[in-house]
Every structure is written in structure tokens, then in C-alpha cells.
């Protein structure tokens, strides 16, 4: 298992920013997950080793943060916000539309491994609701049709 050069550079750089090694843990886990798709046993062991932590200490942190996952997810994570500001402007209907369109429910992954769906809490797009994130990209002022087009774009991107 190897990380990208960019990861290694950032990791080495970040270690210099804090008085304790463990302080880099949370952002490092997220960047590691971005590269590996999810936090596998192997990844967790490697990060624990590098930071002089036990695997249990790392898992303890992983289980707390909602973006971190120890299970494989799709290539594109579709995260639809249904919190109050989005709910008032059709966020729940949008999520249901995704369920139908992708044929999976909350935290489900399509059979081809392309998309994961998740109903998420406020992503900070309240004034441009309803909104969703696909991986880290924001898509705002959505309608079902607009979201269909967005998903089709990602589908094309994967080919």
C-alpha cells in the first residue's frame, strides 16, 4: 500500500505544524480515505504506526467523524442535504428522487460501484438550497432534472 507523493509531502509538512504527532490525525485520515476509497484495516494500521498510536486509538477517532468510513463506498459519493433549509426547498424529495434513480437507499452503493448515496446534515449551502455534494463538489439550487444531469456527467466522467 502506498500513498501518493502529494499525500506524503502534505503529511511530512503537517507534522511540523504541531507540538504533538497525533494532531495531524483527523485531516490525515480524510486524505488517506480519499486515496484508498475507505479506511481499510491496512490503512488504519499504517496511520497508527506512523503516529505512534494504537489501532484502537485511531478507530476511536474514525468512528466519531461522519465523513470517515471503514466500508468501501462508490467512486462518487452523492450526499444530499435534507436539513431544515434544504427541506423547505425540496431536499427530501430530491433525496427520494436519488433513491429511485440510483436504486439504492441511504448509505447504499450501486452494483457497479459508481455511486454511493447518503442523506447528510447541513453542508453550508442553505442560501442556495436544495443542495448536494458529489465527493467534494457542491451542486446547488437543484431540481430533480438538474441533479439527473449532474449524475449523468459523473457517469460520463468515469468512462
Amino acid at each position: 500500500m502506498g500513498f501518493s507523493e502529494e499525500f506524503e509531502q502534505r503529511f511530512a509538512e503537517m507534522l511540523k505544524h504541531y507540538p504533538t504527532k497525533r494532531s495531524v490525525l483527523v485531516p490525515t485520515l480524510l486524505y488517506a480515505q480519499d486515496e484508498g476509497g475507505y479506511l481499510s484495516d491496512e490503512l488504519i494500521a499504517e496511520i497508527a504506526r506512523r503516529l505512534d498510536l494504537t489501532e484502537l486509538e485511531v478507530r476511536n477517532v474514525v468512528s466519531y467523524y461522519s465523513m470517515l468510513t471503514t466500508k468501501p463506498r462508490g467512486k462518487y459519493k452523492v450526499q444530499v442535504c435534507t436539513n431544515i433549509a434544504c427541506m423547505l426547498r425540496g431536499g427530501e424529495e430530491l433525496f427520494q428522487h436519488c433513491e429511485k434513480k440510483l436504486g439504492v437507499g441511504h448509505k447504499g452503493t450501486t452494483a457497479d460501484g459508481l455511486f454511493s448515496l447518503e442523506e447528510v446534515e447541513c453542508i453550508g449551502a442553505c442560501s442556495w438550497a436544495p443542495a448536494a455534494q458529489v465527493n467534494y463538489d457542491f451542486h446547488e439550487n437543484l431540481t430533480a432534472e438538474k441533479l439527473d444531469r449532474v449524475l449523468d456527467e459523473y457517469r460520463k466522467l468515469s468512462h
Partner: protein
Amino acid sequence: MADLVSHPDEMKVVSKRFGLGATNIDRYLELEGYKAVQKALGMQPDVIINEVKNSGLRGRGGAGFNTGMKWSFVPKQSPKPKYVLCNGDESEPGTCKDRLILEHDPHAVIEGVMIAALAAQSHTGYVYIRGEYRYLSVIMQKALRDAYPRGFLGKNIFGSGYDLDIYWHGGAGAYEVGEESALMESLEGKRGIPRIRPPFPAVVGLWGGPTVINNVETLASVPPIISAGAEWYANLGTPKNGGTRLFCLSGHLNRPGVYELPMGYNLKKMIYDVGGGIPDGRQLKAVVPGGSSTPCLAADEIDVATDFDSLTKAGSMMGSGGVVVADETTLMVKFALRTMQFYQHESCGWCIPCREGTDWLMKTLARLHSGGGLKKDIDNTQYLSENMLGRTFCPLGDAAAMPTIAFVKKFRREFEDHLEGQPCAFEANAGVERLPVLT
């Protein structure tokens, strides 16, 4: 990325560089950037603190504590290093302003952290950005990288002999981490659970050192105060509520968006004039004036000034500036349930009244919503909420309880209409674990 809006009543202080390309350091310098910090380098720390204190700037993250006062609690002498921590873990539902500041004016945030560091005589600052805001982390990392070779950060900043490093830090999805003590835990690489206070972070914070913690918008408001003076800033707002604020208008509005308005701006005018009123001539039902943690105001309660003291007097709070507008079609039981689902999901589980309270409230509201509630469930939501208030390490318990009390008190009729097998029209959507439906 997010669309910018404008309105003639806006007073652009924090948002003055939005849309002008100020992420570029040269452009930022052209637009009067990094002048305030150079002025601050010539001021005594006490003078900086007093200036900020007198400006009436209060914490824009939600608590509304006087910023200069907060800085003054940091001890002058400390055996341990002192730190400045900028809170960019924006995640209060209804709030999307820090995102715009970090997107359009990252150097203003850096400059604010620098001035706070000079005031506290700290040599290390961190800007914590929530994990979902990855593109903003990229922008911030670049802004920091650009500031070092110019001599604005690092050793001997601006040739002053003062050393100051500022680093970026990222989260990974947790509302609770926006609470200042949980934020420190997260930055130290741990689960984001709150610490007991006292001692307050100003005395014992990051790695045991005194730590100044302020919200992104608060820190971005500091350079203009140093440049133009406390009196100028204070006069923009109302007594003890200095300056302007970014209001995030969302929900049932014709022109939702983030608008910078003077503190004390009338809420009714904000909704009907700035926000363009409610679509299709529908009537207003309720407004959540400062993010989901703040008690809602009913339609007849909105003729109020939006500053910390006026909204507290009106029985709510100014919170984080997230104004969520709900029209007459909104089902308040549903609204209360969705709000509680959020707090149940985000409760870190450290304090029992919050962990159990949010779960029981969510299940009780879900049962009411599905038409299986008992009359006493309505009073039970009040009883549960009131028993959470003030009984937790951090304000998340209060944040869940306060709006629930207001929803039930102000819209009790709607809760009663849900009794006796009258499920909500939205019942099909309520896919949450719930108490058994009683018949």
C-alpha cells in the same frame, strides 16, 4: 462557486472584497490588504484589545461574547505557548457565511488571526476548516503559502522582529466540533468531545496553552476595526452590538442569499425587502432567526431588531446569523422533528442529558408526527427539553432543547392536530426509528 447577491441596504465591511478576486495576494494588497496588521504591529497589545473591545464586536459563531473581552482573558505571561484558533467548522443549519468569506477573502481571515495573535502575544495560529469545505482548504493553504515568501508570516513578520506562523487544519464531519473545546480536542487528533470549563480556553486551551478561539467572520471583522477605528465600527450597529453581520437568508424566500447588513436591521424588512418576501404571495408562518439552535419566532413576532440583545429580549437568539424562513405550507411538527433528527445525529454522546434527551425527543416527535402520539407526548417534549437545559458540558443540549420548547409552545395546535391517528401529510418521508405507535 456559490452565487453572490446584493441589496441597496447592504453595508459591505466583511464582504467588501467578495467577487473581486482577492484570493490572489496581489489583488488583496491592491484592495488595502495587510495594512491593518501593519498598523497593529505599531500598537501595544492592550491598545489592540481595547480597540476591539470598544468596537462592540461580538462573536459571530453564535455565542455573541464581546471579542475584545475574550482576548483580554488571555494571561500576559504564560509558561506554555499561546495559540490563536480560527473556527471555520461552520455547520449550524441555516448558516453558510464563513464559506463565502473563506472562498472570497481568505487573506482577510489570515490578517484577522494575525491581529488576534499580536493582541494575545501568540506566535502560532491555526485555521480549522470543516472537512466538507475541501475547496476552501485548498484556497486557504494557497493563501498561507503565498503569505510566507512575502515576509508576512514566519520569522520577523513585516520586518518587525515578531515571529508568527499560521497553519491550516481540517475536520472530517462533525457539528459538535464547532463548539470551542471540542474544536481543540479535534485539532489535537481526538474525538470531538467538549471539555469541562473552567478553565476556559483563554487560560488552558490547545495542548494546555492559553488559546484565543474566534469564528471566521469575527476574525475577518477585526482588520477593518483596526484600520478605521472602534468608534466607526461601533456606530454601524446598535449599542453594544457593533458593526455589520452576514445574514444567511434561506427557506421560503424569493431572493435567498447572504447579505451583509448593519447589526440591528429590522427582521421583517430583512425578510420582505432584502429577501424579496415569500414566493407566490403565501403567508409567513415562522422564522428561525439565528441558525437551527435558536427558538423560532411566529409571524407576529418578527418586527424586531436583529442584534444580540434585541433578539434575546424577543425570546430568541441571534446565533450564527442563519435566518430560515418558513411559510404557511410548512408543517411545524415535521420541522421540529427534522431539527431534532439533526441534534440526535450530532450529539457526541458525552453527556447523558444530551445523548438520551435528543434520542427520546426525536422518537417522541416521530411518534407524534406519524399520528401515534399521546396527548401527554406534547407535554413530555417540554419536560424532556427543560431537563436538558443547562445540564450538559457544552451548549449542544441547550441548542436541541430551546427550539423544541418554542416549536411546541408557539404551534401547540399543530401538535394537537397530529393526535388520534392523524399523521402528517409528510408521513411517508419519516424514515426514522421511532417509538411504537400507540393506539
